[in-house]
């Protein structure tokens, strides 16, 4: 259900389409299936230059689309980039290969803070790529009073001045946090409990946008937004009037990881790519282009002070939780959000 901030242009898609035309399996190639606008082209080119392995790069813009294609057998991939709950779902279904850590020595560069998470204990199947949060971006020139959490954000004072992600699961998670529940506590009962709260919130929202919520903030259409931290980091970079706040009630932390699907034909190449991306100087390039939280501590040492001080990329400690796979309950979320939106 997570849609990434990184799905704006089709350029990577075109590149992927051109690359995907070559079906002849050379000994050295890697079929990479990743989020659009999340892996810099220079990193892929650098990998090919260093190893001679040709990368066929195909993109997707939601975990769901990726899983659908993987399950439907739409393509044969060697490396995918699921978020935490998608890793969990795929691992449970036995659709991931165990990553041979001996081939990934640079794993040691990663911060233990993002390892050994409940979705993949011991990181048997996954290696963190980038980490992010979902938080509040505030235009402090327009919003003078402090905003600490969801209750302040959705206050009637700001009616018609808000943008939020167009993502049912995210919206439900904010309401659950506001009620003091775990953001994964999703059942028919808890949804019924948060329904009136969400209904009162959505009335104040001007715009729902998952692809590029920062745009409405930048062009002054709205004054506050609940956005992906990468988008928040770009806002903070662009103009000092923007601030990024982790809601005090609790927030969603996502860990986008690299995984090898079961039966991958070029497992060694996939592991070589994971190891390449974990090199500090390579990981730095990713941070420069997509300012999410870099889990690679060696790479962080190469970042500028300005990058590290960006409160959206590297927020102060907060109450953070990752998403768990919820399966069929997701259709209840759909029903709920569709109903509430059609009442607006």
């Amino acid at each position: 259900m997570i849609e990434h901030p990184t799905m704006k242009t089709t350029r990577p898609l075109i590149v992927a389409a051109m690359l995907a035309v070559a079906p002849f399996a050379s000994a050295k190639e890697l079929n990479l299936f990743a989020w659009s606008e999340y892996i810099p082209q220079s990193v892929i080119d650098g990998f090919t230059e260093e190893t001679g392995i040709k990368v066929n790069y195909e993109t997707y813009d939601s975990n769901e689309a990726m899983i659908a294609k993987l399950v439907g057998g739409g393509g044969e991939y060697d490396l995918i980039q699921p978020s935490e709950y998608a890793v969990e779902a795929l691992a449970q279904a036995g659709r991931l290969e165990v990553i041979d850590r001996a081939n990934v020595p640079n794993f040691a560069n990663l911060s233990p803070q993002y390892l050994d998470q409940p979705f993949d204990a011991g990181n048997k199947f996954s290696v963190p790529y980038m980490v992010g949060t979902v938080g509040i971006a505030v235009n402090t020139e327009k919003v003078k009073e402090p905003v600490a959490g969801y209750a302040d954000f959705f206050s009637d004072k700001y009616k018609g001045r808000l943008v939020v992600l167009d993502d049912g699961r995210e919206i439900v998670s904010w309401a659950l946090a506001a009620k003091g529940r775990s953001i994964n506590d999703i059942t028919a009962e808890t949804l019924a409990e948060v329904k009136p709260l969400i209904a009162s919130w959505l009335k104040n929202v001007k715009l729902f946008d998952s692809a590029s919520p920062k745009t409405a903030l930048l062009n002054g259409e709205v004054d506050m937004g609940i956005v992906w931290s990468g988008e928040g980091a770009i806002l903070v970079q662009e103009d000092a009037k923007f601030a990024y706040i982790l809601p005090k009630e609790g927030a969603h932390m996502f860990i986008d990881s690299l995984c090898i699907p079961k039966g991958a034909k070029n497992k060694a190449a996939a592991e070589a790519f994971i190891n390449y991306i974990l090199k500090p100087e390579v990981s730095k390039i990713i941070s420069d282009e997509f300012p999410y939280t870099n889990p690679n501590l060696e790479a962080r040492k190469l970042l500028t002070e300005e990058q590290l001080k960006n409160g959206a990329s590297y927020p102060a400690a907060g109450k953070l939780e990752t998403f768990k796979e919820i399966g069929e309950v997701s259709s209840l979320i759909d029903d709920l959000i569709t109903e509430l939106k059609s009442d607006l």
Partner: protein
Amino acid sequence: MSTISITASGGSQARRAPGLMGWLLLMPMVLWLAAFVVIPTLILLVYSFCERGSFGEVVYSFTWENYVRALDWRYLKILLMSVWYAALTTAFCIVIGYPVAWFIARADVRLRSKLLLLIMLPFWISFLLRTYAWISLLKAEGVVSAFLQSASLITEPLSILYTPTAVIIGLVYAYLPFMILPIYSSAEKLDESVIEASQDLGAGAIRTFFKVILPLTWPGVSAGVLLVFVPAIGMFAITDLMGGARVPMVGNVIQAQFGAARNWPFGAALGICFLIIFVAVYALLRERESKA
């Protein structure tokens, strides 16, 4: 292709059932229709009675549940709202498009082709780009707002963007050419002398319009209605971009089922319900046409 008209003495060439040559010539069209219309629709029909697996895959076991859910009030309401939006769009397109089409059809021949070019010109630019252009026009700090404010027509910045009004503006803009072109083609064929005859017989301008002009251009209007109303119900890009994804239309709901919600069977059921509305509108228009 009808064989009914063949008589013992042999019908005219045009009315005979197509021979081998005819079928060969028709083949590309028949194959195209089969591959891209008939087969996908059948797949949709099968999916709509299937269940969703926990991974979002289609599980082939029979169920009515998708249709029960599609007819639930919350989805029915969205469908009705979409029909209402599409009806409004169609009405605006007729009101704006009819005079334009009439004017072009009656214009001097050389001017006519230039005017038609102006109607077609927007198609040369990507539809999404044009929609984004509307966003820059309508936004609070946009051109229209600045102009109206400097002309002292409004005091507050314009707040049309991300409202149903913006959606209707976007829809009318997107579909207007599809109303103008068919009306133009039937207005162009209209013989000037029938209007004169009507006036000679003492009918006023209004009576001439409703009794002579409108019935004679009705095929154009009804083609326009079909080309505007039906696609407008299913539009989702404009509601997302100009409506701020606030007001869902049935197109958005269906799109979500095939994407984020990973529930293809439910999306298929909604699609089939939608198809039934298509057919109903078409049948209704055909009936009116045959009466006229």
